[in-house]
């Protein structure tokens, strides 16, 4: 306690030392005078009295010094002094300081952002208790019908069988989205969209998710298919204002009334990171609430066809002490039996379903999509960090050489090695701290930008460990190179350094060469980045310029899911006919049509067809159900025959329009019109081909148009759960949206517009990743070029300033301006050229890494390489020219006279 108090007072003493010093002097003076007065009273002469008093006191300065030592904290004093001195030094070379700090900040920030994204997508576990024991269940084969994401689908029966395996699973939960995208929900009056999942009763308790409010589901809720809803904390706060009174209130999901039962713990957004679940309901049996938005009229249902409909996703928590291998071995026989329950015996050639696990790590669904691009990005930022560190190293080295004399002088005056070390250490720390702080801010911003671009926002935050790692790398660089002058001063004889003037300062050959090597490597890395950026930019340009076969400008698209209102296909047809009739007369709308499956989403509907009464021979095709005038509205020419009209109704003769690929592949060398197409869903009469349309992109921009496609009138297909309305306008499509919303509010107020956007945006989404990659790579390449330029400029400017006297001598002896210019430029250009030579194979290797991402451009594209080389040359010349010109404009007399 006493010691603490004393330390505190000493700390104060450090800060207010000057005032105390004066006070002490007065106090001591008073002491001596009092003693002198007493001495005089004893009969001494005034001068003798004072002298005796001072003698008695015994060293005023020694006492003061002793007090001074006690007053402050010497270590802290020293640190403050170092800091003050360091800041002054850094301010003296302000330009260099700013460049170093910014370089560090950019390097640290960019790396933090990209590695944070990578960490979230590839490495991080779900934020649930004991995530290492959580596994997703997958089956290599699905018998019967399957809906969902590939192998992750199991049947309801399989789930029931597996969840009883208590020795293997502590918990096994099932979940499935209510629609393949958001579905319509309504609280109060305003309809809107939300991601809704249906889940097994033990979903929350099994995963270990706590409840923030109200209650969660029970197994009883699952068995009774209770109409209860649990909200995510985010949705509850954003949409309902975090009002606790909503518990017990009604919430309409796809028009079906539910009761809000509770709110899940903050931060829980489901077990699929890429998809943010907002509302959970127990597994349902209502045909209008089938998983994945499956049609109510279809034969598939969660409980009715439980044996053969593979539609549920599952996640298990392994029991303690059970390894994945043991679990799979134990579950094998149960799984085989249950999987086969729906199909009976397998044929000899049919593949047997096998259970396998995937770990609950990273962003499940997004892993495949983002892994490769993120790795490419990681390489790019890694290169940028390397360039940044090299830059910092060179700038510090250049400065250190200039400080050699100062340090030698201080050594000569008795400065200890430890003190000089501390001093340089403090300066390096200041640089890194500045760069780190700025880098953290930049990283925050960049992470947010990256999250917005990749639309992963929920689980993306700047990663602390990444930041610490990058900061540590920078720190190491700054320390190694910041302390360089110390090492050389300690080693070099003091006299030599002091004798050398600025003009004749010894040029350490080895140091010079290593500096040039660093520059050459920087140039090489920069070239690789520039080539990569060029390739990705061309890819983006190619994707943007692709002919879609659809005139996308002027098209607005939105979805509707009116099943609660229409209840039947006939009702749906009446609903859409009335809606289209109204939309057509809306001001600004030129034409309107319908399509069941929205084009440009990345998905397509696929089926197999038979031609002209053939009994077998399944011809694979993609298909869509569309409204009247479809091809006219979308701007796809009908090459032969006719477009759909209002007359192609449910009761009319069945018709189909095929695309060119279909006609050329399945009906070559004949007139396709009049031929018959039989499809699985219509057992009765086949469809007659009435037109051939030009090819158009279905899944997205990168659709290769090699798959035959057929279009059917929606009234003749049925299963009209969800339809998309396509509007053509002469003006801006987005400007039409408010009027459409107003119309819908009068026409069907309970229906939200599903994903309204322009058709251009919809197609744009299919290459958003490529766009992000192109932008980021251009950004990184420019950053690298900027860093190389500053590095080149910095080192060259420094070298020129050291060679001023030499240049002066040369000019005095008759060297021309041009010769001097060349003298300086030559060195820099040679280094750049060497860098480019190293960089070419590096760039070629990098381009091969990009191959899968490129579109319409070869990895060895000569234009990209030429442009990168030209850009690099420009950077090198621009960065060297300024110092070179300065050298050339040296006044020989002034140069010779100085020092």
């Amino acid at each position, binding site marked *: 306690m006493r010691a603490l108090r004393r330390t505190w007072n000493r700390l104060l003493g450090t800060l207010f030392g000057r005032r105390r010093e004066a006070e002490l002097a007065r106090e001591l003076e008073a002491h001596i005078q009092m003693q002198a007065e007493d001495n005089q009273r004893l009969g001494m002469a005034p001068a003798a009295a004072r002298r005796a008093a001072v003698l008695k006191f015994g*060293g005023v300065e020694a006492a003061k010094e002793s007090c001074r030592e*006690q007053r402050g904290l010497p270590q802290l004093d020293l640190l403050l002094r170092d800091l003050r001195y360091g800041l002054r030094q850094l301010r003296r070379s302000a330009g260099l300081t700013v460049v170093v700090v910014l370089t560090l900040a950019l390097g640290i920030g960019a790396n933090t952002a990209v590695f944070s994204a990578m960490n979230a997508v590839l490495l991080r576990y779900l934020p649930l208790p004991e995530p290492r024991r959580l596994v997703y269940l997958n089956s290599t084969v699905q018998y019967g019908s399957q809906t969902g994401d590939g192998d992750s689908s199991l049947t309801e029966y399989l789930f029931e069988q597996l969840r009883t395996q208590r020795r293997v699973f502590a918990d096994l939960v099932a979940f499935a989205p209510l629609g393949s995208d958001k579905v319509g929900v309504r609280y109060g009056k305003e309809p809107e969209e939300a991601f809704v999942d249906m889940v097994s009763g033990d979903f929350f308790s099994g995963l270990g998710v706590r409840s923030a409010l109200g209650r969660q589901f029970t197994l009883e809720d699952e068995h009774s298919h209770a109409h209860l809803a649990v909200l995510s904390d985010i949705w509850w706060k954003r949409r309902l204002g975090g009002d606790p009174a909503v518990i017990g209130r009604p919430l309409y999901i796809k028009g079906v009334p539910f009761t809000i039962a509770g709110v899940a713990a903050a931060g829980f957004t489901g077990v699929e990171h890429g998809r943010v679940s907002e509302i959970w309901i127990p597994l349902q049996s209502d045909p209008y609430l089938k998983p994945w938005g499956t049609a109510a009229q279809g034969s598939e249902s969660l409980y009715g066809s439980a044996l053969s409909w593979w539609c549920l996703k599952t996640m298990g928590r392994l029991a303690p002490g059970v390894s994945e291998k043991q679990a799979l071995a134990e579950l094998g026989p149960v799984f085989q039996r249950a999987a086969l329950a729906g199909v009976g015996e397998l044929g000899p050639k049919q593949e047997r379903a096998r259970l396998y696990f995937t770990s609950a790590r990273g962003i499940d669904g997004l892993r495949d999509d983002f892994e490769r691009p993120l790795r490419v990005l990681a390489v790019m930022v890694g290169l940028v960090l390397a360039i940044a560190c090299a830059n910092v190293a060179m700038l510090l080295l250049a400065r250190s050489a200039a400080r050699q004399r100062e340090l030698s002088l201080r050594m000569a005056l008795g400065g200890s090695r430890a003190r000089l070390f501390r001093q340089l250490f403090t300066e390096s720390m200041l640089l890194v701290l500045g760069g780190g702080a700025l880098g953290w801010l930049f990283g925050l911003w960049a992470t947010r930008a990256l999250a917005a671009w990749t639309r992963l926002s929920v689980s993306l935050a700047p990663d602390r460990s990444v930041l610490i790692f990058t900061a540590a790398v920078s720190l190491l660089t700054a320390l190694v190179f910041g302390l360089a002058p110390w090492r050389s001063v300690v080693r070099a004889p003091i006299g030599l350094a002091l004798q050398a003037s600025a003009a004749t300062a010894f040029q350490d050959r080895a140091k010079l060469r290593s500096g040039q090597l660093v520059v050459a490597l920087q140039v090489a890395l920069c070239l690789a980045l520039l080539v990569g950026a060029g390739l990705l930019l061309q890819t983006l340009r190619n994707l943007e310029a692709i002919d879609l076969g659809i005139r996308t400008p002027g098209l607005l698209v939105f979805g509707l899911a009116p099943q609660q209102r229409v209840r039947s296909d006939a009702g749906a047809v009446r609903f859409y006919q009335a809606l289209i009739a109204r939309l057509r007369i809306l001001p600004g709308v030129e034409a309107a049509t319908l399509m069941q499956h929205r084009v440009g989403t990345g998905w397509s509907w696929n089926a197999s067809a038979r031609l002209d009464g053939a009994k077998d021979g399944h011809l694979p095709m993609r298909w869509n159900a569309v409204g009247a005038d479809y091809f006219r509205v979308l701007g796809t020419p009908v090459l032969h025959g006719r477009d759909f009209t209002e007359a192609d109704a449910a009761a009319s003769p069945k018709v189909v329009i095929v695309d060119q690929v279909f006609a050329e592949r399945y009906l070559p060398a004949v007139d396709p019109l009049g031929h018959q197409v039989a499809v699985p869903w219509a057992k009765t009469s086949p469809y007659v081909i009435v037109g051939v349309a030009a090819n158009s992109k279905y899944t997205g921009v990168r659709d290769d148009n090699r798959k035959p496609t057929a279009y059917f009138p929606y009234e003749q297909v049925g299963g009209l759960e969800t339809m998309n309305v396509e509007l053509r306008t002469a003006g801006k499509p987005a400007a039409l949206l408010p009027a459409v919303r107003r119309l819908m509010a009068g026409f069907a107020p309970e229906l939200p517009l599903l994903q309204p956007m322009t058709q251009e945006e919809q197609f744009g989404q299919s290459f958003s990743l490529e766009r992000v990659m192109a932008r980021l790579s251009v950004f990184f390449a420019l950053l690298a070029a900027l860093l190389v330029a500053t590095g080149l400029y910095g080192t060259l400017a420094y070298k020129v300033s050291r060679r001023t006297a030499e240049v002066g001598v040369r000019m005095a002896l008759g060297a021309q301006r041009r010769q001097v210019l060349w003298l300086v430029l030559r060195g820099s250009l040679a280094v750049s050229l060497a860098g480019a030579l190293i960089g070419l194979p590096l760039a070629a290797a990098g381009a091969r890494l990009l191959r899968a991402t490129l579109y319409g451009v070869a990895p060895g594209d000569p234009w990209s390489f030429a442009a990168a080389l030209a850009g690099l040359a420009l950077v090198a010349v621009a960065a060297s020219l300024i110092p070179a010109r300065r050298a050339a404009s040296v006044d020989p007399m002034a140069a010779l006279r100085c020092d």
Partner: protein
Amino acid sequence: MTEKRDVWQGTLALMVLKTLDALGPQHGYGIARRIEQISDDLLAINHGTLYPVLLKLEQEGAIAAHWAASENNRKAKFYTLTKAGRRQLDSAARDWQQTTEIIARFLAAGGEAR
């Protein structure tokens, strides 16, 4: 003739505290004089060595300081014993007593037992 003795570290602080306890508020010179008087001038202290001790005691909160006029109307810094200082004095005095008693017993014990 007896030799003058140096004060050893730690005891000076105790003497300062005791002086302030006995005399009340006192300036540095007064404290130094008092210590010399009590020890019958057997203790020779450089008055300068007193000040680091005073600073340390002040930093620890055992004494407090204020500026006031001295007997001769000179402005001087006066030190006062604080409550914490009195506690420190008591415990230090007790410790000192104990130590001297133990040492005294050792010195009196002689060399008979082995």
